[in-house]
């Protein structure tokens, strides 16, 4: 049996030795609109369809409806997977708002403690092996100091690793090309950077595997496309 979780995103697994190593935390970063969420959706949906694995999509930024609608645009039916118990889309922001009325929670903010609690409960009844957290940037807003955020993030990372989940953490990039808090990449076992750039008057999307522990990965920048059916990476093409 493979010790990796394949994403089954055409062309991507070839770059990373077949997929993400089991039990690892993987950071998907990129500027807004770089298809980070779509990458996360593919990871879970393909896992459910192709490997019969259960996945959890924790969303803090987008509403559940928004996620469903976005997926439908690529002919991905998330609701049927939910009905089959293969996928859980959890709108954590909304859930928290329903539970409490404190000022912070009115904005849908959630701490890593909240995520810890949720995951512990969830994993007690589901056999999920894949997780997407969209996004770690939103969780970070809960914390007023970077020190505190760093400590909590490390605690949360430990929980993820011991829970047997292979996780994707989505994180935004600043305009300088850095992660928002500058610490996400240290916690993660791998870092995938999605981007777009101008070339001969056109925008093209690019993907770079910046880091991947336990894996001999392809570090080059590859173009990828968002086709009718979703993301397609071109491992044969290299930019730069």
């Amino acid at each position: 049996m493979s010790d990796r979780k394949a994403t089954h995103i055409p062309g991507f697994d070839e770059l990373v030795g077949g997929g993400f190593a089991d039990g690892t935390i993987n950071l998907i970063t990129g500027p807004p609109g770089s298809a980070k969420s779509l990458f996360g959706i593919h990871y879970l949906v393909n896992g459910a369809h192709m490997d019969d694995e259960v996945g959890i999509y924790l969303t803090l930024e987008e509403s559940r409806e928004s996620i469903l609608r976005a997926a439908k645009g690529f002919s991905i039916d998330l609701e049927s997977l939910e009905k089959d118990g293969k996928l859980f889309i959890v709108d954590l922001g909304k859930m928290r708002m329903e539970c409490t009325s404190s000022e912070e929670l009115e904005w849908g903010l959630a701490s890593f403690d909240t995520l810890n609690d949720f995951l512990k409960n969830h994993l007690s009844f589901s056999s999920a092996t894949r997780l997407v957290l969209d996004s770690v940037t939103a969780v970070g807003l809960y914390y007023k100091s970077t020190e505190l955020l760093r400590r909590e993030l490390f605690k949360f990372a430990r929980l993820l690793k011991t829970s047997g989940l292979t996780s994707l953490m989505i994180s935004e990039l600043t305009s300088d090309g850095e992660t928002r808090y500058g610490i996400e990449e240290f916690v993660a076992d791998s870092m995938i950077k999605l981007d777009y750039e101008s070339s001969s008057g056109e925008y093209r999307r690019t993907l770079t595997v910046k880091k991947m522990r336990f894996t001999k990965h392809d570090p080059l920048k590859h173009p990828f496309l968002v086709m009718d059916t979703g993301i397609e990476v071109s491992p044969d093409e290299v930019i730069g």
Partner: protein
Amino acid sequence: MKDVEVYGKLLEEFIRKVTSPEIGQFRLEVSTFRIILERERKTNPILNRFSISETGTTTNNLNDKDESLLALQVVLQRSLDFLSSLVGEELARDLVMSSMQDSIKDLASHVKESPRLLRFIPPPFNDLLKDMVMGGPQATDHDEVLELFQDIFGSYMKDLSAQTDLSALKLKLNILREKHRLLRHVEVKKNNTIVFDKEKWANAPDEEVREALVEAFNSMVGLSVFLVGKEEAMKKASRSLEYYFESKEHLIKRYRIRDHIVNGSLSRRISTGIDELDHRMHGGIPKGCSLLLNAPSGIERDVFVSRMMTVGLNGSSSILMVLSKEPPRSVRMLLRAQGLDPEAMEEEGRLRLIDWFSWRGERIIGVEKEGYTLKSSKILSNLGIAINKGLRELTFTGSKIGIIHMIGPALNIFDLNQVYNFVQRLRAKFKEDEMASIFILEPETFSDEQGKRLMEVFDGQIELSKRMVDGTFKREISVKALSGSDFDSTPIPFIVKDNMLHFAGSEPTPPSPLPEVVHTPLKQERRKTMVNARRAPSEPVGQIIREDAFEDIDDDAWLNELLEEGAADVPETVPEVRPLAIKVSEVIVEVPEPPPAENEDDGPLEGQNKVPVKPIIKGRKLSKKGKGRSSEALTGVIKERKALRASGPPPVRPRRVRKALGKDMPRRSPPDPAALMDEIDITGTQNSPQKLLLDAIETIDQLLEESEISVPKDPHAPQKAQKKRP
């Protein structure tokens, strides 16, 4: 003479031939053979009774026993192997075949008397001897190939039986027996071995034997594909052939086994479609090789490419084509004209068209799919993605051919380094996929420096040249370079007649017959239009003119063709013409009145959709390449057209022209077109030639208002307009 003496004589003759100056650059030294003999003596002391002098003569004291013959066979084989290691197996064989012909004649009578000799004489010597002794290759002797296939099938059956029940295979063989009578004489034994009744096969011609064996072998490979996957099955098939046919190259050649098994996917070379050129490369383009086709735009290149595609698709190849100068529908039309069904081939995974043309006219984001066609936006990384996708979608088992036409247009957009890197990546990918490819490059689109740099990327170069010698065009095709393989660079002169390439000294027919008309894409249409314009006005003519047909016409080629057409009127000296001169393209479009349909609902005949034609007249600025062309020549051509127009029926109204030029011109009474043409000064010396041209357009507009046209159109394209009657 004893057998052993005959053998010694054969060896001596071989040494004499390959050490003689006649052999040219591949000449060997006698000392080489002395060293080989010396080495063999160490393992076989019997050879001490045989010696080779410094001049190459032999002294033979061997006794006439099999062991002596075997010892000499080893020496001969080692010598041949040495030659092969220097010049390649194929060339070594060819050298032997050509140089030993006469020498072996003398030995043939001895061999006839003593057939055992043949057992000890290795190929290709024994092939020659057999031919002489038996009067040509014996179609009746299939024992050798049957024995080999018996072994191959035995090994396959053994392997397959370990993984599955062989009943499916046996059933398939039973079905094949209906188709191939020879397979009725094959017995599948209980221990999963196969036995051929050789006597029953003995009198069959080679082709029939091959077909039967290939069908049976393909069935086994098919079952193997089902069990272990395509890649593994192909590897196994290839290994089997390599193993069993090792040193049996004569059989491979005789039966052309590799070219047929598994749709030829095991063949090592891909035909260019032109036998003469294939011979220059010893069988065609080696698999995995990317060659540069250095050819100017024009009918020659179009016919060459068309021929390569047709032969490939009619055979067992699949084709990936990158288009940058014409839309995919042109290629489909071309293939249809050759009697092929491009849509079915696309569905089959045998044909993929990569459209790098449409981005000029429509908005393409990244890579888009339209049916089976992959459209790429301008940037090269997207083109690369489209090509890779297309390559993955070529699922047909046969060999793969790539026809890539993008370098010239890419050099106009991107810098040389970008294009260089892109082509280099493509070549690596094609090599990995064992795809034989040609990259088309027009000599007029790059500088010498760029050409040298680009050439580094490729495995070889084919040059197609056309130049004017003594008032006539001299056309030649040659292999300029081919790495890792021997080739003959002698140019092959040819002419283009009836849209086919005809080679000097050969019958004016291609190796395998093509349909009479080869419709090359847009340029061909343009050419026909020009021809149509020359016809007598009463002759019915009909031609499609599309605006996009003129978009990417190369000035040089256009002028060449124009000059060629009107060669009689063209002076040989060509003074320079100012670059800003106007070139008037041809616009005569006439169509015979279609017979009235009995039933209006019948609609157009299949393949003859009728739409109103939108002919155009286009004024174009000559590029810098137009420099050096003759103004007189152009004037002559224009005058000729003018005369035709004046005497012929009114041409069709070009509705789109005014729109395209953004002019909203009022209508007026039509002036005499001949007089109008006189006003046009193509050298640009009079005022506003553009205006005069517009006037001419307007005039023709007026004259042809009542005209209506029916045009043969791509039958698969949706019918866009109803026909009208005047």
